[in-house]
């Protein structure tokens, strides 16, 4: 295998991408898959807002509206935000810790394909005209009563995608624990790596409850179980507990990597070491732990009683403390820094006020008595969009601009990037700020339409206009991506000029073995330290150049995931079609055969020869 760029046919390129175990390519696959579902979820959002732009609108039917809100939420959380963040983790974290790949490249690929087939399964519901309609939370009484196969698509699709997520989380944990370059102690890890680490640990503990809950739901709906049926001795409230024991950590799994992204951006474009690095690490870990202790604040109105409500209210407010530590650290990172307002920095600057607003409304809802007023109103909708869009999506867009050169080798147009930002930012606040008042004025969430004369008309219209501004922002971004890719102007190692972490010391995009020689890490922001000491390459090698062991690609992950995809259809149609049970068994057998094939094959990978590495280095102008 040669690293010299060769023209390959379409078939060979496709095969290369389907079988890849390279973390950089899997990162791009996650990014593209997540980006696709982000657009799908965005279109659903536009339809929702169009339906609500005037009173008594009948643009969509009530049933279709339920489908749209359910799929919008589920798609955006599970199929857009998480995969895109996984894309950045895959593409960047191994580079930041000086590793050549993740710990388990095969499992990495399996995780991606399980996400992909799970997402595909969920979205095929649109073609079957039986779409999940019990909300993204899928509360049990409603989801058990839901007719057709809608909720079955939800339960099985998320089960498959969730398995992929769990694998990805474990993979990152092992990678960060075991594959750090010499000198990269825990307290020298870049903050994006730290937040990935904590988010992965949260995945490890939070996704098993989701798996259990979804299995209960699957059994209740498809195999005659009674876990949530109170007439048969089940407990319908237990779904809410299980869901939120998963669901609350889930929102921190989303926001922590975004925090990491912004920490990198603040420090890079303020040209300063991140202020209070140890306290940032501590705050990240603390948020990760407290995230498991607050799930019942989603259930204050269920009737848990004053003791539970009070304890969970206090625990919820405690999370504001480490989050506040982070906010002040970012502000103090900028303080006295030599700030450059690039597009990523613009997003970071917009993030602070937006996310603080979302956090403050979160504390308001954390006060249990007030939550009785706010529960299930548009105030809630406003709050979680402020944290998810104002935090996670701004983080994703910032990282898209920031790491685009590292992932694709080109720099997105800065002027267009700023246009995207302003459309998106103004649109975002226009859409969701007014929804706080809509909540106060009594508009319940998840309503299909509303009647005239309640004082909600103009607020809803403003909200809809804002949503379309956000859509314009995203369209400008897509245009930006297309023209940048067409122009294809390659950039150097560190196009921002102020890179501090290891990924900026190697070419964009990095060669498939990342580092010719594993780097020696001499402190936090090691590349910055090297540059300040006059080492222009930004790297000190920790070892001589020698043969590199690399994993072979494999088609098996895609086959394994496809078996589960087939089995999902079998499980769903088991009772009503004669082919259901055989297909279920066939799909599972398919997966087991694929697993056996993997277990029995003796694939020890291959070596990149020292000569070839030296050739690559010479081609790039020699090693300094």
């Amino acid at each position, binding site marked *: 295998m040669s690293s010299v760029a060769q023209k390959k046919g379409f078939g060979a390129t496709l095969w290369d991408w389907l079988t890849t175990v390279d973390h950089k390519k899997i990162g791009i696959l996650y990014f593209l898959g997540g980006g696709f579902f982000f657009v799908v979820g965005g279109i659903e959002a536009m339809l929702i807002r169009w339906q609500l732009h005037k009173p008594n609108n009948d643009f969509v039917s009530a049933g279709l509206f339920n489908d749209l809100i359910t799929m919008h939420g589920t798609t955006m959380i599970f199929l857009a935000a998480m995969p895109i963040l996984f894309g950045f983790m895959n593409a960047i974290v191994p580079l930041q810790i000086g590793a050549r790949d993740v710990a388990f490249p095969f499992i990495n690929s399996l995780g991606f394909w399980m996400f992909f087939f799970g997402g595909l399964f969920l979205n095929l519901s649109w073609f079957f005209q039986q779409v999940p309609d019990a909300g993204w939370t899928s509360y049990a009484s409603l989801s058990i009563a839901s007719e057709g196969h809608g909720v079955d698509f939800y339960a099985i699709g998320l089960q498959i995608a969730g398995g992929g997520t769990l694998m990805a989380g474990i993979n990152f*944990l092992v990678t960060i624990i075991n594959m750090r370059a010499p000198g990269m102690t825990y307290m020298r890890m870049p903050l994006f790596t730290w937040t990935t680490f904590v988010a992965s640990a949260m995945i490890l*503990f939070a996704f098993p409850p989701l798996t259990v809950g979804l299995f209960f739901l699957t059994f209740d709906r498809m195999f005659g179980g009674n876990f949530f049926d109170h007439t048969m001795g089940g407990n319908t409230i237990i779904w809410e*507990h299980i869901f939120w024991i998963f669901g609350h950590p889930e929102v921190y799994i989303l926001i922590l990597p975004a925090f990491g992204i912004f920490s990198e951006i603040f420090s890079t474009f303020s040209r300063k070491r991140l202020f209070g690095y140890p306290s940032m690490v501590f705050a990240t870990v603390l948020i990760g*732990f407290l995230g*498991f202790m607050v799930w019942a604040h989603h259930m204050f109105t269920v009737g848990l009683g004053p003791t539970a409500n009070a*304890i969970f209210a206090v625990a919820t407010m405690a999370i504001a403390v480490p989050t506040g530590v982070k906010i002040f650290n970012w502000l103090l990172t900028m303080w006295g820094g030599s700030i450059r307002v690039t597009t990523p920095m613009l997003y970071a600057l917009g993030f602070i006020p937006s996310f603080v607003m979302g956090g403050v409304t979160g504390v308001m809802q954390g006060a249990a008595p007030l939550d009785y007023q706010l529960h299930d109103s548009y105030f809630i909708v406003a709050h979680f969009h402020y944290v998810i869009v104002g935090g996670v999506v701004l983080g994703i867009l910032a990282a898209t601009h920031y790491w685009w050169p590292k992932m694709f080798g080109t720099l997105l147009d800065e002027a267009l990037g700023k246009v995207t930002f302003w459309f998106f930012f103004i649109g975002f606040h226009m859409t969701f700020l007014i929804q706080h008042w809509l909540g106060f004025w009594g508009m319940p969430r998840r309503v299909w339409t509303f009647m005239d004369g309640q004082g909600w008309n103009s607020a809803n219209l403003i909200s809809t206009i804002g949503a379309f501004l956000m859509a314009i922002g995203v369209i400008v971004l897509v245009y930006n991506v297309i023209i940048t890719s067409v122009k294809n102007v390659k950039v150097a190692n560190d196009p921002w000029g102020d890179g501090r972490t290891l990924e900026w010391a190697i070419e964009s995009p990095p060669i498939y073995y990342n580092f010719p020689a594993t780097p020696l890490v001499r402190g936090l922001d090691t590349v910055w330290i090297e540059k300040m000491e006059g080492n222009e390459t930004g790297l000190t090698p920790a070892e001589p150049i020698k043969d590199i062991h690399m994993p072979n690609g494999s088609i098996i992950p895609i086959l394994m995931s496809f078996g589960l995809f087939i089995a999902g259809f079998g499980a769903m149609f088991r009772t009503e079609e004669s082919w259901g049970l055989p297909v279920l068994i066939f799909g599972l057998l398919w997966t087991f055969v694929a697993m056996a094939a993997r277990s029995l094959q003796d694939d020890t990978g291959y070596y990149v020869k020292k000569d070839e590495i030296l050739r690559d280095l010479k081609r790039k102008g020699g090693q300094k």
Partner: protein
Amino acid sequence: MADVQVYKRTPAEQQLAQRRSKKAMRDQVMMFSLMIFLTLVSFSMVVAYEAGVAGFSKYLIIPMVMLFAAVQVGLQLYYFMHMSEKGHGIPQMFMYTGALLGFLIPLTFVTIVWW
């Protein structure tokens, strides 16, 4: 293939390695006997209770058996799965975090959520 490096131990290193493995073997055997002993005691207590021997009440035996079980889990993890050796800090941290969460969440249910 990369060059295979052959590393020859010095006599002192060899001795140290031998002493260490001897000690490890002794520990393993000791712990194994201890675990068998604990299992025997547990079974004997239950048999004694079944046979109606005075002094072996349910309220004595159940906590005792649970306690022995906990000790056995600890021995299993620390000796037979080598958690007592160096380089197991991170797995320990994750296990204890998991155990803490697995304890706290059910505790929440039985103390403040359901009653």
